[in-house]
């Protein structure tokens, strides 16, 4: 409806104070001003047209009484004295991007500061999912901290393959290669590196002389390279008991801080407790897969993040029965070789099903993140996180 039609069809209600509206919201002064004059539309109608079209949804007020009542309510609702002293609003907004919009227009027009508004959002989210909501970086770091498991001997010794996709050179150099060097258990290292970075491949070879380094296309994120390495292992008739899958996880589009702490937590907890994990898996045939603490996620199929369409498509293609979206996120875990090698047999997974380059969530590679867990369950094995395996210290 245009202004002229609006002025003919709509009666301006008594409680709309045009003078107040224009005075309180200076940007409306010029709104359709000339057009209204030319079309003989009253100033009241012109301003009410703005209110209906834009003002109301932006939280604008129609009179001073409304303004007074609503602002008092908002000041009470977003009371600064309720905000915890250690709440870091800059960290919080970076972590939970949806918070930027939370009551934004309401607060903007009611003199509420970002800090109070964002803290309100924090309280709201904390109620919904208390385990993954942090009010400052210290809490996030603590969540993914290193948990030291008891030192144990692995009897009999396990044959271990560590399979790494090293896409980001900086993460390899500064974090992952250092963690791998601290491992005091025998393992074979397989690393996939983007074909565009042969220099990194040479570097890895010289750092880890016994390693096998494979140059790969930038396709299928860390998943396709993992499957190709598995394929090579199977084709070479090599066999292992367990496979530790790691990669230089980083995000350009997602939550940078969460990804950083998750990645470091995975490296430290998996590499630093390797002996314990292997011994637990050795001692429990039912244990098919182990992840770092706080990395298990269960999703409803309808959730956007569930990626259920791709998940079902891959399941069907591979003949996987388990359809639960209950997996270790970040795709860094220890898995039994006998289970994961099935994914590398024959040509059930063609390269064509994976997308090129970096993709946000929702791709075939992301569906695989969910598939590994289903394969484990199809083998009637269970999935556990490291901290669930550590005995509680009775002392």
């Amino acid at each position: 409806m245009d202004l002229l039609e609006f002025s003919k069809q709509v009666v301006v209600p008594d409680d709309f104070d045009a003078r107040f509206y224009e005075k309180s919201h200076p940007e409306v002064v010029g709104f359709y001003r000339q057009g209204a004059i030319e079309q003989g539309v009253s100033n009241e109608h012109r301003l009410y047209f703005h209110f209906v079209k834009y003002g109301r949804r932006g939280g604008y007020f129609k009179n001073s009484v409304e303004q007074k009542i609503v602002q008092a309510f908002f000041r009470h609702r977003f009371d600064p004295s309720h905000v915890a002293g250690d709440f870091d609003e800059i960290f919080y907004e970076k972590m939970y991007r949806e918070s930027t919009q939370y009551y934004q227009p309401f607060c903007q027009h009611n003199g509420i500061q970002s800090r109070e508004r964002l803290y309100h959002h924090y309280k709201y989210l904390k109620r919904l999912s208390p385990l993954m909501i942090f009010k400052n970086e210290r809490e996030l770091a603590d969540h993914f901290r290193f948990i030291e498991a008891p030192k144990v001997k692995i009897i009999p010794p396990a044959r271990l393959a560590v399979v790494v996709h090293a896409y980001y050179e900086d993460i390899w150099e500064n974090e992952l290669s250092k963690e791998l060097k601290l491992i005091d258990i025998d393992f074979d290292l397989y690393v996939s590196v983007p074909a565009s970075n042969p220099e990194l491949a040479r570097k890895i070879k010289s750092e880890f002389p016994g390693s096998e380094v494979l140059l790969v296309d930038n396709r299928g994120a860390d998943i396709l390279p993992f499957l190709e390495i598995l394929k090579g292992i199977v084709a070479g008739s090599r066999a292992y008991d367990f496979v530790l899958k790691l990669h230089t996880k980083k995000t350009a589009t997602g939550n940078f801080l969460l990804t950083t702490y998750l990645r470091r937590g995975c490296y430290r907890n998996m590499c630093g407790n390797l002996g314990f994990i292997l011994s637990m898996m050795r001692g429990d045939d039912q244990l098919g897969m182990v992840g770092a603490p706080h990395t298990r996620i269960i999703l409803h199929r309808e959730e956007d993040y569930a990626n259920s369409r791709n998940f079902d498509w891959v399941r069907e293609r591979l003949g996987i029965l388990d359809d639960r979206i209950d997996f270790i996120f970040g795709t860094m875990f220890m898995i039994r070789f006998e289970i994961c090698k099935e994914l590398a047999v024959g040509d059930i997974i063609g390269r064509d099903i994976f997308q090129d380059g970096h993709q946000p969530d929702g791709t075939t590679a992301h569906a695989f993140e969910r598939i590994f867990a289903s394969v484990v369950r199809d083998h009637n094995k269970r999935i556990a996180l490291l901290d669930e395996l550590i005995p509680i210290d009775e002392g």
Partner: protein
Amino acid sequence: MLEPKIYYYIVCHDPRLIDECEKSVSGKLPGLQYVLVGRQPYSSVLDREKMIVCNELSDNIEHLPNLCSFTAWYAIRKNRLPTDGYVCLLEYDSKVGTNFDSINKRLLSEQTNNRFMLGYLKAPVDHPVFLKSTPWLEISLRQELNIDLASLVACHKQKNPFWITTTNVTIPWSIFSDFVDWYLPLTKTFARDPWGVFVQERALYVYSVLHHLEIKFSEVQILDHAESKSHGLVDLYGDFLKLRGSGVFNHEMESDYDVLYRYFIETMTHGSS
């Protein structure tokens, strides 16, 4: 005459509260099961047989975080946990008397048909607590069913002057399952807003009058509701009273509250919050 078959459920969002709750209802509700909503990890001393974890059921709406009790109702209905008799759904912070089950059974036996809902706590329907607790009741009814809430109440308040406060009810299975199916489309309007949780108990009244059900109440007090609000949710009405530093709503507040309520109705209808 056969005793009515009642399936007792207590809905709880925090596993830590279950053991406490069990102490207070122990032995009073035969066959009682706890329905856990939300995604918190649980470690109760209870037998797993006494627990229903919605997130573990094949059909659940745990991805809609603000529906609280309805998440349990939905899971019970869609997974066809019972398929007959009566369903008695209680909130975790309700205290039931020792005679709850026997009085409940007597009340059900007295009914001549299955077209009713039985509540334990009541309040007048022509009051802001019903009409304006949350903007979402009015908005969802208008948007999804083209129903004007004020007119509906004006039309039915003489015959049905009270609504069942809280979601503590006993309902014949067929009515319960039909209510869940009727209510589900409404939730799409408010499922992602914290004030959405306050719609369900009010919608029971709307559903009842639209479907010509009788709204029955226990004449003796066999249930008390502590309103622990451990989920931290307060409705618009409650927040307004807090702002005014008052426990009760009086007539001087009416016009101010109406301005506030209208402000939210209009801004939320425009799709911003």
